[in-house]
């Protein structure tokens, strides 16, 4: 079997793909990293969240618009097109838009050309064609992937969303039957998959990072207990797509939609990657650690020989660096001012040949052909560049707040915990909803203290 047995068509070009790849990952490997352009300034955009949240990977697939290609498995003969390609977004036009963009201040379309009425009407007519993202599908594509399957699971006891440490712990501690849901194939989710890959390929690395090693073993033992537990049903490769009061949830996986009502919901879905703010922070090639875990363990991305940088602090920094190393990439570690200066950690970095810088801050990202080419940082005052095609930015994740909010949990903005979190520990459990783990603002290693020995 050839390594890349599947061929998709990208704007007329044949792209060979690995069998387990997503479309976006396959394109990325082939050097096709600009998947779309931003609506106002035409800025190049590429893989970012790998989770179906953002709009960067929206492309037209077999005539259907706005398809999230970060989630779409490759299939032979798939026709992929960017939705906004053409001369309008060629580099000279982009330069023009980016330079003159400040002449179109935010909200300009509210304030300009209001007088006289005829001009106002003309202006409205004129800007209308410039709005909107995808184009309506052609008649033969109106049905999309029909028919759509849907199942009703009825009224369940406890539903736990997220099978990381906190989710698995909650499932094991529940006193009724549990439906445990995760978007990864196995209990332990994306972090366990990432740590498994590191343990498999470079066990010495993991041994040198004792906290991650312990996390890995705990994830493994929790996963075994979950798999052995008769009262826990694990639903893999399944995403929660909607929550409606009082207790209605909608899940989605390859087999279709699942409707259910839950007497008790445990929200353990972790955090979003937080992307820091700096110049050109939206270049393709800048991602967060959670996207990295998914891309490398589930979406079929390979990074052999790729120049990468891991910037920031925390357990996710070390896990990302190790995962990249275990996957054959070249790693440069750029620690920020919040990173631990634990000697053992730095020792591990040196031992495995990761270039290391401390006390850095990102000033800007710089691109070539629309994709990341290097990072500009300051380090102890001195400014320098690190060439790289992929940079993983590791800061405290943003707790996933949308479902807790919709199910009535009282949230408050707390930057120390990464974003909107339950106001108090006791309000983290509101009637039938509780928020645990990273979704409640904890760090990835903090959740370990909840694990029973």
């Amino acid at each position, binding site marked *: 079997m050839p390594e890349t047995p599947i061929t998709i068509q990208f704007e007329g070009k044949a792209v060979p793909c690995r069998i387990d790849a997503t479309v976006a990952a396959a394109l990325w490997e082939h050097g096709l990293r600009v998947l779309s352009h*931003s*609506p*106002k*300034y035409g*800025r190049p*955009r590429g893989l970012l*969240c790998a989770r179906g*949240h*953002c*709009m*960067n990977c*929206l492309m037209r697939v077999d005539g259907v618009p706005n398809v999230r290609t970060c989630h779409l498995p490759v299939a032979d003969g798939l026709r992929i097109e960017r939705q906004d390609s053409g001369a309008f977004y060629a580099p000279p036009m982009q330069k023009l838009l*980016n*330079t003159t*963009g*400040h002449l179109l*201040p*935010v*909200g300009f379309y*509210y304030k300009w050309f209001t007088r006289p009425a005829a001009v106002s009407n003309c202006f409205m007519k004129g800007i209308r064609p410039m709005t909107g*993202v995808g184009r309506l599908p052609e008649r033969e594509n109106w*049905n*999309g*992937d*029909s*028919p*759509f*399957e*849907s199942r009703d699971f009825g009224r369940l006891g406890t539903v736990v969303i997220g099978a990381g440490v906190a989710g698995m712990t909650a499932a094991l501690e529940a006193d009724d039957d549990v439906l445990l849901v995760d978007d990864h194939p196995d209990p332990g989710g994306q972090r366990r998959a990432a740590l498994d890959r590191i343990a498999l390929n470079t066990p010495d690395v993991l041994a040198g990072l004792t906290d991650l090693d312990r996390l890995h073993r705990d994830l493994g033992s929790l996963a075994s207990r979950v798999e052995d537990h008769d009262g826990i049903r694990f639903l893999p490769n399944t*995403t*929660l*797509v*909607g*929550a409606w*009061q*009082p207790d209605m949830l*909608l899940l*989605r996986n390859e087999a*279709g*939609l699942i*409707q259910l009502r839950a007497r008790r919901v445990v929200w353990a879905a972790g955090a*979003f990657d*937080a*992307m820091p*703010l700096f110049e*050109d*922070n*939206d270049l393709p090639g800048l991602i967060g650690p959670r996207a990295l875990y998914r891309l490398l363990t589930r979406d079929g991305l390979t990074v052999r020989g790729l120049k990468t940088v891991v910037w920031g602090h925390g357990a996710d920094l070390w896990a990302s660096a190790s995962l990249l190393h275990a996957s054959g990439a070249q790693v440069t570690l750029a620690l920020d001012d919040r990173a631990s200066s634990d000697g053992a950690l730095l020792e591990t970095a040196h031992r495995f040949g990761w270039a290391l810088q401390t006390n850095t801050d990102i000033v*800007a990202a710089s691109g070539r052909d629309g994709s990341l080419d290097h990072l500009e940082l300051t380090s102890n005052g001195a400014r320098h560049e690190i060439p790289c095609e992929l940079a993983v930015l590791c800061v405290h994740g943003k707790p996933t*707040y*949308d*479902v807790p*909010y*919709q199910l009535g949990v009282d*949230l*408050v*903005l*707390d*930057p120390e915990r990464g*974003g909107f979190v339950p106001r108090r520990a006791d309000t983290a459990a509101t009637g039938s909803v509780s928020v645990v783990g990273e979704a409640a603002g904890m760090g990835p290693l903090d959740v370990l203290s909840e694990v029973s020995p």
Partner: protein
Amino acid sequence: MSKCILCRCEDVTLAEFRKAYADGFQELESLKRFTGVGTGFCQGKGCLVESALELASLRGVAPGDIPLTNIRPPVLPLTFGELASLDIPPLIGELELPDHDTEVSP
């Protein structure tokens, strides 16, 4: 010209957000609608926290004083075709006991 992007979906830069604040939009609900932050395809997953923190800094208040804007279902966009395939759930009033006075019109 390089830009620091606050909201990717609507292409709102940090500078533009600050300018809208200076223009008199001082709450997240109106800032959101005027600038577009949080109203695009990702519905704020990529920018609402950052926008709220920036607003707290501009107003000179504690982050805890900035309430979250209304986050609406669904969590992820669903096609109309998929939704149409579901059974129609009962009214919310039948799913729970109403705690308000209602009078059904004839």
